[in-house]
């Protein structure tokens, strides 16, 4: 039976029952379950954003009440950070691609992998329960003592939701670390690994080292909230700034949990669409690890305007600049790879270009904000909001969408409409800049974040931003339509539609349930395009 239809059995059609999906331990199916989940969360977070961009179209607070506005931006932040940005690239693309890219049958712990999806859904469910039963108004940062003592919303449930979700991230990181160490195919040495795998390794390090600190932080918050005992309570001699330190010990590196895997995707895409080995491969690989490590020493730049000591502020400010070095190494090496190569401008490559532009702006404004003196002026303004959206939305989402378009033929076995993909890449890029570029100006002029009303002279810039948000929204919706359309009507995808050199392109699209039909033996490094053959014109 199996022999007869060996050519057509793949991981999607091997079993159609719901049960076979809900109990699957196949990393490819789990990747798709994450894809569905994060898409739903992205939509929810996006609806919140739509609502408050409507509110901000007028200077007066007229659409929603101040309390509702607080809940909107809080849930937007919580949902987007914990339930979209952090799982998007690692849990969706990472789960699908990682074992294929290293020539493994699965991740090291397939059951644990399924467990992390369920843990994720339970945490997400609790958070959505909070959203539906009165909301949350602390901001995604949960700062004490407001969250522990004064807030009237359901901080306890939200903290429990985030706590639980953290374990999903921890388990994924743990799984990937062991997978990369122990599951590589013979011949797949460290220096032959695709850069996406290096990036996932660096990401997993952060997930394992930082996430537990967030877990204990929100657990303590939950305990304090539930029982009224003093942990961070200044009335009892506790220190709310301790909460901020613990929170940002995780939440700054969390930015690299989001951006590092995206950078890994970009490396894959640049190599494939320039038909070249990534220039300075080992530097790009090492820079992922460097970003992960240095990223642990900079969290205090979020506390410049707390009671954190000036001395600590200076140290954290200086260390924050250092992150720019490995980030620049990556950008320079991607550019050097593209230089004088024959780039094929297919849609994933457009997302790469978008990533580079947005990440550059986000990164450079990050250096501005890391400067102790300048941050005093910019702190908690729209300048900060614009900066981190350039990194976390501009950067991460461009990488995520680029990767999704790149691996979509492999995941589904179907090609999507290239023309529509180009239109959406363009819309996202234009819409994004239109949304957030005005916010840099607003922030510089002094508009604080998290207010639902503002002086009338800022209305023009705010309307521009809201208009941009609608373009951006359309840019995000179009892919949902044509990607779904491709499932039924798309051309069947060949095994290697882009001429990629990764192991995932050596097998059928979509892959068979156990990935590789023959034992994999790797004999050359990633991106072995052969020097001289291409692009040196």
């Amino acid at each position, binding site marked *: 039976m199996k022999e007869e239809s060996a050519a057509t059995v793949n991981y999607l059609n091997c079993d159609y029952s719901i049960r076979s999906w809900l109990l699957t331990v196949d990393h490819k199916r789990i990747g798709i379950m994450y894809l569905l989940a994060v898409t739903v969360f992205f939509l929810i977070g996006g609806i919140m954003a739509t609502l408050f961009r409507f509110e901000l179209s007028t200077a007066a607070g007229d659409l929603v009440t101040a309390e509702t506005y607080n809940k909107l931006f809080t849930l937007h932040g919580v949902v987007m950070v914990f339930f979209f940005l952090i799982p998007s690239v690692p849990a969706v693309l990472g789960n699908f691609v990682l074992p294929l890219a290293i020539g*493994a*049958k*699965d991740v*090291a*712990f*397939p059951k*644990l992998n399924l467990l992390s999806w369920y843990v994720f859904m339970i945490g997400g469910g609790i958070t959505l329960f909070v959203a539906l039963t009165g909301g949350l108004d602390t901001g995604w940062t949960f700062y004490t003592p407001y969250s522990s003592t004064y807030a009237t919303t359901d901080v306890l449930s939200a903290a429990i939701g985030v706590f639980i979700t953290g374990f999903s991230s*921890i388990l994924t*990181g*743990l*799984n990937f*670390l*062991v997978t990369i*160490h*122990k*599951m590589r195919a013979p011949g797949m040495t460290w220096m032959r690994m695709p850069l996406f795998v290096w990036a996932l390794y660096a990401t997993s390090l952060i997930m*394992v*080292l*930082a*996430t*537990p*600190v967030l*877990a*204990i*932080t929100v657990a*303590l918050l939950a*305990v*304090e909230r539930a*029982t*009224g*005992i*003093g*942990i961070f309570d200044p*009335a*009892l*001699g*506790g*220190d709310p700034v*301790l909460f901020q*330190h*613990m929170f940002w010990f995780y939440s700054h590196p969390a930015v690299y949990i989001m951006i590092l895997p995206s950078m890994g995707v970009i490396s894959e895409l640049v190599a494939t669409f320039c038909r070249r080995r990534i220039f300075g491969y080992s530097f790009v690989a090492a820079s992922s690890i460097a970003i992960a490590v240095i990223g642990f020493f900079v969290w205090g730049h979020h506390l410049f305007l707390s009671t954190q000591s000036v001395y600590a502020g200076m140290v954290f400010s200086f260390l924050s600049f250092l992150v720019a070095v490995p980030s620049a190494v990556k950008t320079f090496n991607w550019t050097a790879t593209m230089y004088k190569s024959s780039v094929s401008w297919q849609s994933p490559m457009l997302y790469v270009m978008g990533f580079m532009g947005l990440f550059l702006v986000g990164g450079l404004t990050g250096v501005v904000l890391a400067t102790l003196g300048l941050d005093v002026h910019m702190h908690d303004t729209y300048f900060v909001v614009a900066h981190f959206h350039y990194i976390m939305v501009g950067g991460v989402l461009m990488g995520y969408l680029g990767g999704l378009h790149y691996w979509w033929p492999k995941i589904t076995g179907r090609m999507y409409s290239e023309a529509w993909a180009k239109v959406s890449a363009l819309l996202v890029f234009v819409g994004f800049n239109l949304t957030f570029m005005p916010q840099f100006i607003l922030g510089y002029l002094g508009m604080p974040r998290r207010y639902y009303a503002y002086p009338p002279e800022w209305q023009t810039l705010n309307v521009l931003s809201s208009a941009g948000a609608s373009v951006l929204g359309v840019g995000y919706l179009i892919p949902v339509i044509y990607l779904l359309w491709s499932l039924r009507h798309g051309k069947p995808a060949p095994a290697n539609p882009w001429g990629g050199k990764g192991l995932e392109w050596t097998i059928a699209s979509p892959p068979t349930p*156990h990935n590789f039909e023959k034992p994999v033996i790797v004999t050359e490094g990633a991106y072995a395009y052969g020097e001289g053959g291409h692009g040196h014109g």
Partner: protein
Amino acid sequence: MAESRNPLAHHFDSLEQQYAAAKLGMWSFLITEVMMFGGLFLGYILYRCRFPEVFAQGSHHLDIKLGAFNTAVLIVSSLTMALAVHAAQEGRKQATLTYLFFTLMLGLTFLGVKVIEYSDKYQHHLIPGARFLWSEGDAGPPQLFYSYYFCMTGLHAIHMVVGAGLLLWLMALTARNRFSPAYYTPIEMVGLYWHFVDIVWIFLFPLLYLIGRH
């Protein structure tokens, strides 16, 4: 037949690879445990530096004898756990079962003593919150001490309870002949976990019970 069940999962090439993956996974998990308890120790250090006298006073209400007894109990349990792994390596089923059982009993003894200690704190109104009573000055900082005392020992105790469940599971598997000198990975992994929980207590005991005793 339970004995004929193949312990090698389909996605591994060899038992050796499977064992190495499990071991590395367990150590990664222990890293996350270190960082999680680390967040508690961090707050403890900060507040102890800020209120050294109050922390010493709070510590004086803890029972050194019970604390030291529990420390000894856990060390013995770590020994029996190590011996259980040793017996499993040599394929001695009955010895493995016996050592796992001793480890479990010692773990339950520890938890029993913990219950005695907690109820004593309850009777003396030393549980932070509305009922908290403190006759030696400002009742704020002492609550910090007890908040951390309960959070740290409480999280540790939760780990002990989980550990006890794992030991029961191991005993059931051992009784069903699931292990052999070629495959005893779960016993060794639970052992790592159990020793880690012991280490946490090795730090908690002096830091909570033994402040300013001279």
